[in-house]
């Protein structure tokens, strides 16, 4: 079965990714269905990163020489690219080393300023998360609550893998200061209904923090339209290098947000006993940043934009539809997450009968098929569903219909392999 209606020419796209020239497990074609964990990189990104080191390497924002100028220009140019990608303004883009760091930055900033800090979380305040959060968007808030005495509450997940919004007004009450949630679940593929949540959060004066790690690499993002207050995503899931993450925040919020990491570059003035802070975004970028990685990320976003985010989403939905239909035909298969493609992205978690996901993943690996198994860093969610683990396939622009067929054939092969043993 193939999707001739796909808007993408995957054969052409795959040629841009050097990793697809190699084979795995004794000459098998690599079927990479683990982009939800990290994406593969096109040659242009690898070159952009290497080229920075080869030709322009110097510490940004310091040094009175030509290389420093070029490095600064490349790094700040990358910031402009990210701003364009998110339809944001350039001063609202903070480079971090990862989305995890971005979320920790916020969680610490909300408790590290002086008492006049308007973001200071205190006893009696409430932080709202959801049951489907990745550990990176749960634990920083959980620990912030513990540090400050604030209360942590959460939206539950329905058996279909959607957020249960029936108690939204009680959950997001007048004590609520922060609502942190994922745009798209890294386990279920669910795309969350932001409009209602953002409206309620703003009604009570809370800020909305959006984890866009699974959405920004796959669909066009417009921060103004989303209406959230902070957003983060990681470079390496969006064709970019590891070691680079993005935090976007509304400028009027960043203006007052206290810093998290202290050191070089983030200051305005320093004496032995005190210091004042540079304006955003530099206030949040202490130390020499990951410059080559920022440049690599800009190249990745350019690649995605050239292909077209709308086309990428449409392509991934076709693959998702094909996989969901295929799994529906396998009696033992159970999908965790929406069974339709409405408000859903290209991540599908499932189990197959009594075959443990690790064993299924191992069999698939023997066929050259790379999937993720386990709790996917969302342990409370898998526990909610009463299981220890699932197998997860996640798609990207370089996957095609034949790879969904290979996965389905691999599942049948695993059923056969483990049947009579």
């Amino acid at each position, binding site marked *: 079965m193939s999707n001739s209606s796909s808007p993408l020419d995957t054969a052409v796209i795959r040629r841009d990714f050097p990793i697809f020239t190699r084979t795995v497990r*004794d000459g098998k074609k690599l079927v990479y269905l683990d982009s939800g964990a990290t994406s593969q990189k096109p040659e242009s990104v690898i070159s952009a990163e290497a080229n920075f080191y080869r030709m322009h390497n110097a510490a940004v924002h310091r040094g009175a020489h030509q290389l420093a100028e070029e490095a600064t220009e490349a790094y700040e140019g990358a910031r402009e690219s990210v701003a364009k990608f998110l339809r944001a303004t350039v001063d609202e883009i903070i480079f971090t080393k990862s989305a995890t760091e971005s979320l920790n930055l916020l969680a610490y900033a909300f408790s590290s300023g002086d008492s006049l800090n308007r973001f200071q979380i205190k006893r009696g305040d409430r932080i709202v998360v959801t049951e489907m959060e990745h550990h990176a968007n749960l634990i920083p808030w959980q620990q912030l609550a513990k540090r400050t005495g604030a209360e942590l509450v959460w939206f539950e997940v329905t058996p279909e893998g959607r957020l249960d919004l029936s108690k939204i007004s009680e959950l997001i009450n007048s004590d609520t200061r922060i609502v942190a949630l994922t745009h798209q679940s890294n386990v279920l593929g669910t795309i969350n209904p932001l409009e209602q949540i953002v409206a309620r959060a703003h009604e009570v004066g809370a800020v909305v923090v959006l984890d866009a790690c699974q959405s920004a690499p796959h669909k066009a993002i417009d921060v103004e339209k989303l209406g959230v207050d902070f957003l983060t995503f990681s470079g390496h899931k969006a064709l970019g290098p590891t070691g680079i993450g993005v935090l976007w925040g509304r400028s009027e919020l960043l203006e007052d947000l206290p810093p998290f990491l202290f050191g070089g570059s983030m200051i305005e003035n320093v004496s032995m006993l005190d210091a004042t802070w540079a304006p955003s975004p530099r206030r949040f970028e202490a130390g020499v940043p990951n410059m080559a990685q920022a440049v690599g990320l800009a190249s990745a976003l350019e690649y995605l934009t050239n292909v077209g985010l709308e086309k990428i989403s449409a392509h991934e939905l076709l693959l998702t539809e094909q996989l969901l239909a295929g799994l529906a035909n396998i009696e033992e298969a159970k999908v965790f997450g929406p069974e339709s493609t409405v408000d859903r992205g290209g991540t599908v978690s499932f189990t197959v009968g009594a075959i*443990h996901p*690790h064993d299924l993943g191992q069999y698939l690996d023997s066929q050259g098929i790379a999937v993720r198994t386990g709790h996917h860093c969302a342990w409370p969610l898998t526990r909610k569903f009463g299981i220890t683990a699932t197998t997860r396939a996640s798609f990207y622009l370089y996957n095609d219909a034949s790879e969904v067929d290979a996965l389905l054939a691999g599942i049948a092969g695993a059923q056969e392999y*483990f049947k009579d*043993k």
Partner: protein
Amino acid sequence: MELDSLYQQVILDHYKRPLHKGLSKNSGVQVHHINPSCGDEVTVKVSVNDGVVAEVTWDGVGCSISQASVSMMSDLVTGLGIKEANVILDEFTALMQSKGTSAGDPEILDDAVAFAGVSKYPARIKCALLGWMAFKDASVQAQAQ
């Protein structure tokens, strides 16, 4: 196929028909170990009398490798002196760290040499060791009592 070196029949037999599964009512030291990277869990209960492993029972959820390994471990060490049990434990640990270069000593490991293939799959070594590490933890505690 290459995969057969991992999924030896004796491993799958233990997975399907585990031994000593179900925690004993007898007194003993009970520990709960988790593989945080995958969520597999095992509870192992060990009683030691006069330096001898009197009883090992367990319960758990996990993949075939982790569950078969704890099943085989419980059968192997029951009735042995602590020192002998530790010899097997050390041999098994060494086998897991051998990166596929060792076949394991059947004189010491008995059926557990079937796990030799696991050492070629770095991601699965923790699965195979989960029950053994729980036994080590529980038996050390039991001796201290």
